[in-house]
């Protein structure tokens, strides 16, 4: 195996993994705070991908810039979803929440199928086939841009939770819901904000994914599962863990595609998930409770 090929594939995997990580970050934030498993996460990303494709087709808006409007759009969607639909479910058992979100996922998937039809769509940006060359290493421009944008969005989120008063309040809710109520925080509104932020995160990831893959209405479940895998591997509630998990999964997929059959690539993700659940259930970067 030529070494430069291996290096190319490795770096490509890491760059894709960062976008996966951003998607999983949304899931991690939602579960970490609201304690609801968002089984419609991949479907929400698919919605964002269609929005990005349309924005590109109608306004020639580069998917990298579409992050802002689509992020806002998904934020509103997530906020309404949480405040109208999910808030009454937070005290209900897990299987009840699961059915609710499966219903949301079914509605989203089939709504998209009705509107856009089953065919794959994409946004052909001008730089789709360009690449940067550093010595023997060739980097796809789209991957570099997407990964950079993913890091930027993740950093903004990190800063928000670290320094903004609302971010701190959300963290307080996650740490101790009763305590948050006692000091007078409006927990339900903060939950809705959190779901909105998680949705905005997956919206941004959807815009970036448009640069990497074609979108079909039925993409959702695969990416929901991918999101879970990443979040569990990285450690639930750990923001750095979600990015690390994303990189690991992106890398393992890329290497499995190169060294073995490409169709078996996601087997490694699930094998990794099983091992992590069994031997380090709090995830690689998670804290033991």
């Amino acid at each position, binding site marked *: 195996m030529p070494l430069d090929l291996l290096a190319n594939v490795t770096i490509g995997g890491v760059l894709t993994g960062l976008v996966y990580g951003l998607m999983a970050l949304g899931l991690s934030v939602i579960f970490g705070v609201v304690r609801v498993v968002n089984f419609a996460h991949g479907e929400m990303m698919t919605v964002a991908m269609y929005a990005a494709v349309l924005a590109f087709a109608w306004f020639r808006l580069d998917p990298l810039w579409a992050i802002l409007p689509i992020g806002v759009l998904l934020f509103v969607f997530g906020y309404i979803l949480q405040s109208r639909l999910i808030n009454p479910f937070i005290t209900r058992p897990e299987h009840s929440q699961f059915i609710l979100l499966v219903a949301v996922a079914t509605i989203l998937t089939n709504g998209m199928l009705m509107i856009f039809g089953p065919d794959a769509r994409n946004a052909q940006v001008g730089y789709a086939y360009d690449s940067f060359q550093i010595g023997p290493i060739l980097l796809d421009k789209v991957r570099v841009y997407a990964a950079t944008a993913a890091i930027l969005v993740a950093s903004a989120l990190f800063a928000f939770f670290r320094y903004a008063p609302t971010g701190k309040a959300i963290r307080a809710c996650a740490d101790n819901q009763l305590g948050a109520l006692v000091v007078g925080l409006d927990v339900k509104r903060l939950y809705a904000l959190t779901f909105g932020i998680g949705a905005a995160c997956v919206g941004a990831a959807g815009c970036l994914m448009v640069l990497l893959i074609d979108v079909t209405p039925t993409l959702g479940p695969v990416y929901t599962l991918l999101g879970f895998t990443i979040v569990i591997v990285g450690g639930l509630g750990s923001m750095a863990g979600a990015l690390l998990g994303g990189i690991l999964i992106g890398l393992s997929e890329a290497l499995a595609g190169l060294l073995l*059959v490409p169709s078996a690539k996601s087997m490694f993700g699930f094998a990794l998930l099983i091992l992590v659940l069994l031997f380090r259930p709090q995830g690689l970067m998670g804290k033991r409770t």
Partner: protein
Amino acid sequence: MIQALFDWPTPRALAVWAALAVCLLLAPLVVGSYALSVLVLVLYFAYVGQAWNVMMGFAGQLSLGHSLYIGVGAYVSAVLFVRYGVSPWAGAVAAMAICAVIGAVIGFLAFRFSISGVYFALLTIAFAEFSRIGFDHISFVGASAGLFLPVAQRTHNDLLHLRGSPVMFYYVMLALSALALFLCRALRGSKTGYYWLAIREDQEAAQALGIDIFGYKMRAVVLSAAMTSLGGVFFAFYYNNLFPEQIFAINRSIELILGPIIGGLGTLVGPLLGAFVLTVLAESLRSATDALGLNLPGLQLLFYGVCLMVVIIFLPNGIWPALKGRLGFDDDRRSGD
């Protein structure tokens, strides 16, 4: 457990059960082939829903990866039949044994490391997905190109080899669902059933009372896995083709658990009622959209999703618990719900 079998329900409930049994037994004489195929689906979902309910409804362990047992059950019996000419009934025994072992392994790993709740559910998904991709690459079972059973000849019913008309499959599935119902009824009145309920309601309290929670959770997983595998055997011989992408898919796991949750988790009637309501709903949505000339792909599933959401919002415990009070049944009194 034996005692529970003779613990008769109230006369009113008994009359309804008897009427239902007669209707189901006579149905193939009355209904057309389309309605029969819908009824076969109802019974299939009622059976696998009952099997899943043992684990989640009784013992409180949420599995979202039951397609694993459907798939393994289907593949084991089909491969034995196609490659070695083994009767599906012998194949079913093998399938149950293998799925029981798989269930035991997953249960052992999960419960030893005290994985529960959402994490346990994700672990079951991971095993199912892992198997889906794995079976896609095993050429012995046809890999992603699929495994096909010789197509059934419809004129002659061969019960021994499960080759025959839809009516035969209907009665096989009816017998299986009835057996599952009796088994679950007996289980719920047994010591094991009460221990499961205790674990479901409060695992730590159950442990404090001296219940071997590991052992009893293992029993639930193993039994549920073995029961579900029979659903897989039926699936293989009824549909005659197997693709890993379809049979191990997460959708298969989800469709199987909707019935018991919508019908009423942990109740005996729930899986049956849920299977009936959801299957008939899906089929009538299909007929309605066809009749209106709306063959828009996705419309019918969109409505299905909306209905699912409405039911779970307004009937959080499912249809049966809301219904039985009004009908004056107290058949489920022993569950304490």
